[in-house]
């Protein structure tokens, strides 16, 4: 065990963890909007809209995240007409390719989490609102959405942690996130065990923090 290497690489890895957190937070925010939109589409009575939303979540939950990143980064880069379009400004950058892949992936899972949360809302609650003469729009925004978000907190917390670990795949498209920098240090020191232990420790700490934030929110918004 080369403890000196572990201590020396710690600040570099900590800096890289900031990149990981940035990737995570940006894709979670975009993914949450996508998830909410598609959860609502899933509840739509129109068969086509419903199937479209189901197809989206089916594809993105049914294929590996690594494959999705590779298709968006290396795959789309092969299309000549795309490279000469304005979209290339975004798709040229590995950062945005990673964000798009992560956001679409987490959006698919989030839509499922929120859909099941909407469906578990007891009809009595909505009926209570209706009997007070509240419009269905307000019932949706002020009653259904808050309850759904509360219901989905535990599952969504898991999704955040899964996504945090998923961001390590950003290193496969040249991004210098926590895993990317760890690999870089290994490429010059040839000591994977030491470096990956430190990197793993940082991931574990981030999980610990996220887990506790979710636990706190669950308690704060508990129904009891």
């Amino acid at each position, binding site marked *: 065990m080369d403890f000196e290497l572990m201590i020396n690489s710690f600040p570099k890895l900590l800096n890289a963890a900031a990149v990981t957190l940035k990737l995570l937070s940006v894709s979670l925010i975009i993914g949450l909007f996508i998830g909410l939109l598609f959860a609502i589409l899933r509840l739509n009575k129109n068969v086509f809209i419903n199937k479209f939303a189901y197809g989206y979540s089916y594809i993105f939950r049914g294929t590996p995240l690594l494959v999705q990143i590779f298709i968006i980064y*290396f795959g789309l*880069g092969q299309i000549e007409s795309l490279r000469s379009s304005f979209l290339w400004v975004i798709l040229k950058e590995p950062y945005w390719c990673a964000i798009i892949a992560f956001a679409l992936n987490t959006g698919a899972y989030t839509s499922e989490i929120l859909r099941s949360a909407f469906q578990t809302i007891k009809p009595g609650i909505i009926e209570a609102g209706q009997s007070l003469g509240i419009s269905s729009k307000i019932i949706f925004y002020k009653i259904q959405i808050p309850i759904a978000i509360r219901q989905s907190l535990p599952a969504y917390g898991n999704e955040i942690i899964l996504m945090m670990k998923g961001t390590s795949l950003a290193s496969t498209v*040249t991004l210098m996130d926590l895993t990317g920098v760890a690999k870089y240090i*290994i490429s010059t020191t*040839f000591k994977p065990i030491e470096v990956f232990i430190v990197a793993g420790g940082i991931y574990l700490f981030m999980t610990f923090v996220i887990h506790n934030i979710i636990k706190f929110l669950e308690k704060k918004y508990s129904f009891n």
Partner: protein
Amino acid sequence: MMNIFKKTIFSVLLSLLVIGNVNADKIRIGTEGAYPPWNSKDESGKLIGFEVELAYTLCRYIGQQCTIVEQDWDGMIPALIMRKFDAIMAGMSITAERQKAISFSQGYADEVASLAVMKGSSLEGLDTPAGINLTKPNAAAKKALKTLTAALAGKTVCVQTATIHQNFLDSGDVGKVNVRTYKTQDEVNLDLASGRCDAALAAAVAFSDYAEKSGKPVVLTGPTFSGGAFGNGVGVGIRKDDTELLKKFNAAINKARKNGDISRIATKWFGFDASM
């Protein structure tokens, strides 16, 4: 029940031991299988290339059987140290940095590095000598580095991770360039062709091989590099405590060179004699 369980574990462990012994007198050689024409795979997934053929030739001279093991490039040296195989033949240049971790046999082939760009790039046709040696750079080499520093300023240059090419760009010899690292040379080639990289740096043959097979207008530019961060030829990587195997490989390379085997195999795969 417990007894059966114990027996199963015992027999599995025993069989592992036996398998281990069968393999004991076989030399396991690690290669990447993704760096043509040095080493790559054919359509059926079989390992082929200059080093695969050379490895079997060297093993014949050593008089021992060999198996060739595939290993990702970025884990090559750690895998050797952890005894996943006994020798590396993967287009690995002999550099001072790597020699801190492992030993090398004498060089068996020369790897010449070069920058590559897409046809029509502003980096095409740089005013530099044909080749520069960085071990003791002369005036012309120093001037070439200056030309490159000016040309590459702010440009994105792509390389495979953990390579001499990455080391060179990180060394600052050509100033501050935006270095992007990839797991394989294939991915470097893809991003060079897509235009995400302004230039790429690797073995010159890796680019000509890609240009030929893909039909993409990839052209070499600037000088070819050798010496310094680029090391002194490609050798067999061996664990430091494995001095016996190192001697065997050195003797085998001597014999293969004398009999013209290395030249013959190199010419077959590179189209020119890259042996040394």
